[in-house]
């Protein structure tokens, strides 16, 4: 996948650089307080996701990792009406509930991947479907990943059936300093991207530092060609966004005071609208960044302009500045053992996650890969064991936070999913053994309490439109 990305990027580097003019619109709607008219629609492509029907289900005799560090041996999990009802040692089965004896098996919250390109870089990886990098300019905060999501990507099904992935964030690629908005999806096939959108999940902004932007644009003789060029363009972009926000803040105040005239409304600019969302704290920042020194530069930049970096992604060198990340409340989303595919990935260690955890920093696993997303549980198992070998002993159930509540927090959805707390979405995986073993696979996966995968039932195995009528249709994969 990395190889494919680099190829795609090299090809894109030859294409012309289009300038996107500011988008002006008089269409209004939203969030003004008081009695004034809303200024514009903040959710013009709303989620149409609806949970599928489920039955009240009680799974008994299982080892439960609740996703927030809790563990119950020989425990039970009950969910109904799409929500977790109860997790405990023994739970009486309500009338009409399906009871599953899970002896020898494990139940966990569904896996959450904070960094995926499914739908935007789908299978098959042909140029016609390559929609993840708007590599026509280093600042492309105006693009939205959801407008590239192809909901028929066969990769969604593999992430579900082999990986137990129930929620995932689709991000634009990292060719640009500002890649655009990311979108959070429930891993449930739909005819439309809107049909997969996680209801109410905050938007994110994908940013990238380091080699990719400077390579893509520097090779064309454009800014940025260096890391200092990256920072300069980043900062100028934030200066412009701050000015945009100042105009809008002034206007919104007039609206609130009842003094606004239609002609007072500033022109809308999609790029700055997203950046203003970040400055207003409404949009999370998911920042691709490998090197420790660059993360430190970005942290200072975020303070310069008054925004918050939510998570550094890839963060190969996060272990070198685990204390700095903790002090600034910034998460690191990392791989277990990727290294060396490019210079900024040279200083990888297998123990990045345990070292972050030991320092008290917020850490999580991520995939960035349609194959890796099928084995995030195994990735955690690898790094967890490597950590233990160097004396960092983290219990299995605590390590599961790297797959559930921590990414949920960094995606702003921890109040709704990411752990098996009563009232949360019943995003649940029944594993056919210890999920930190290579020999274990998901046996059943529920999303919002609906059974979306059952290894025992070929009819509960999704097959995307693309795979219909093709060799291997409906195979176990």
């Amino acid at each position, binding site marked *: 996948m990395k190889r494919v990305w680099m190829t795609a990027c090299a090809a894109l580097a030859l294409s012309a650089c289009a300038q996107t003019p500011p988008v002006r619109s008089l269409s209004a709607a939203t969030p003004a307080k008081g009695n004034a008219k809303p200024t514009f629609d903040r959710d013009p492509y709303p989620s149409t996701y609806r949970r599928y029907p489920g039955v009240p289900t009680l799974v008994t005799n299982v080892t439960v990792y609740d996703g927030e560090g809790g563990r119950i041996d020989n425990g039970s999990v009950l969910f109904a009406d799409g929500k977790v009802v109860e997790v405990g040692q023994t739970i009486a089965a309500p009338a009409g509930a399906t009871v599953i004896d899970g002896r020898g098996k494990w139940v966990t919250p569904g896996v959450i991947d904070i960094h995926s390109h499914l739908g935007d870089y789908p299978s098959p990886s042909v140029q016609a479907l390559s929609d993840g990098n708007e590599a026509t300019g280093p600042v492309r905060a105006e693009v939205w990943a959801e407008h590239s999501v192809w909901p028929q990507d066969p990769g969604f099904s593999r992430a579900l059936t082999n990986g137990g992935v129930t929620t995932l964030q689709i991000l634009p690629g990292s060719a640009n300093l500002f890649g655009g908005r990311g979108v959070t999806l429930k891993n449930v096939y739909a005819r439309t991207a809107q049909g997969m959108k996680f209801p109410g999940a905050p938007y994110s902004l994908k940013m990238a530092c380091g080699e990719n932007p400077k390579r893509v644009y520097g090779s064309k003789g454009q800014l940025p060609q260096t890391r200092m060029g990256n920072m300069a363009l980043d900062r100028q972009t934030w200066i412009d966004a701050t000015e945009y926000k100042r105009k809008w803040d002034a206007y919104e105040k007039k609206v609130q005071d009842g003094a606004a005239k239609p002609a007072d409304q500033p022109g809308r600019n999609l790029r700055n609208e997203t950046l203003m969302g970040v400055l207003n704290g409404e949009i999370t920042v998911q920042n691709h960044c490998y090197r420790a020194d660059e993360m430190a530069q970005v942290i200072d930049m975020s303070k310069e302009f008054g925004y918050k970096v939510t998570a550094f992604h890839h963060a190969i060198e996060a*272990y070198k500045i685990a204390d700095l990340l903790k002090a600034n409340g910034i998460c690191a989303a990392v791989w277990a053992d990727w290294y060396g*595919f490019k210079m900024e990935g040279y200083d990888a260690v297998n123990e990045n996650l345990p070292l972050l955890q030991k320092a008290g920093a917020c850490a999580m696993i991520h995939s960035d890969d349609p194959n890796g997303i099928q084995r995030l549980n195994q990735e955690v198992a690898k790094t967890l064991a490597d950590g233990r070998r160097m004396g960092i002993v983290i219990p299995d159930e605590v390590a599961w936070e790297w797959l559930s509540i921590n990414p949920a927090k960094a995606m702003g959805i921890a109040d709704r999913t990411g752990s098996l707390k009563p009232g949360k979405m019943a995003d649940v995986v029944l594993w056919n053994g210890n999920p930190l073993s290579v*020999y274990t696979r998901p046996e059943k996966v529920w999303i919002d309490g609906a059974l979306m995968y059952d290894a025992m039932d070929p009819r509960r195995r999704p097959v995307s439109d693309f795979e219909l009528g093709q060799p291997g249709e409906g195979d176990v*994969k």
Partner: protein
Amino acid sequence: MKRLALIAALLGATPLAAQTVAITNAKLVVGDGGGPVDGGTVVISGGRVTAAGRGVAVPGGARVIDAQGKWVSPGLVAGFTRLGIVEVDGVRETNDAGADKSDFSAALDVSLAVNPRETPIAINRAEGITRAVVAPDTGKTIFAGQGAVIDLGMDPNAVMRPRAFQFVEFGESAAATAGGSRPAAFAMFRNALQEARGYARNPGQAGGRITDGMLTKLDAAALVPMVEGRVPMLVHVERASDIVQVLDLVREFPSLKLVLVGASEAWMVAPQIAAARVPVLASALADLPASFEALAATQSNIGRLQAAGVTVGIGMINDDEARQARLIKQYAGNLVALTRVPGATGLDWGHAFATISSAPAAALGLDGEIGSLRPGRRADVVIWDGDPLEVSSAPVMVMIDGVEQSLVNRQTKLRDRYAVPQEGALPKAYER
């Protein structure tokens, strides 16, 4: 650090190369398809295995290593990699995998680029990989060049067998290289083999191109051992129909010793592959229709091939194969996991282990040398802290040719330096 301490405790300070060594009390994996047996012993002498099994006597005077019930296996054989020829993929100066501006192709000898000191060698050695099949990547033609088999030892002589095979691309990428279509790739192949045969009969003057031919003389000369069946021809091919076409080439060039690489759709034509006695170095977990030539990709591919009687090992192609050979353990473990998924076809533990030991060795015709602990094989031995196919396991000791290897590398040194991230009395640069 713990790992190092354990090795020291097991071995003391003396090098093992020339000694007779007996590793006793092992959970022993021979690597030829069987499962582990408890209470096993491995005897090593002169860099070779002399005996392995239960009830094997410890020779008098042998140095005894008590494995304390731990898993002991042959070192792992990575069936298709670019190990030793790439330091950082994206840093062109360090990447010798391919030469897309060279006028030469089949002649390119990858063994000349192998650097035993590059960091991926030490990193993979520390995870139990002791041998690797190293293939070049294609440039201007479908012939990538001559691959090598290497060891991952600390010594400066990594190349075990140079010019061990020719690597050829067929399918989508070959179509593009050859001018735009699959037929163009086959035409390029046929022409090259005919010119190579002609060259073998009449080598003529050295240098330059063959008279009235398309090949350089060096390329033609390099193809002769392949045409004559003295070295295998490894062919990357994915689509079922392409595989059938490649199998058919043997009718035209009967001495070719084919080995398929990648082969995502091989399960669809498994009986033909078995009948042709062609081994496969397959991508283990490819299960996405990543291209139109891999629509039927499934993790059950290897299991189905094995069930059809095909010799099948795990190869990695277009899968971080320059650095991540160590993942083959995880891949093999996943094949075992499939045995518990209804409708999937996996492998039992012993056969899964063979896909990363004796099977790839056999595919290259080297199973008499490496890939198992049967008597006479090179003494590549790993002692593990757990089941070698389990993702939580790691080696506690690695031996190559009977020599104990360091498990330290850049990554373990960085880890140790930053075990506490804050600087101490001096900057981190002084800490090692």
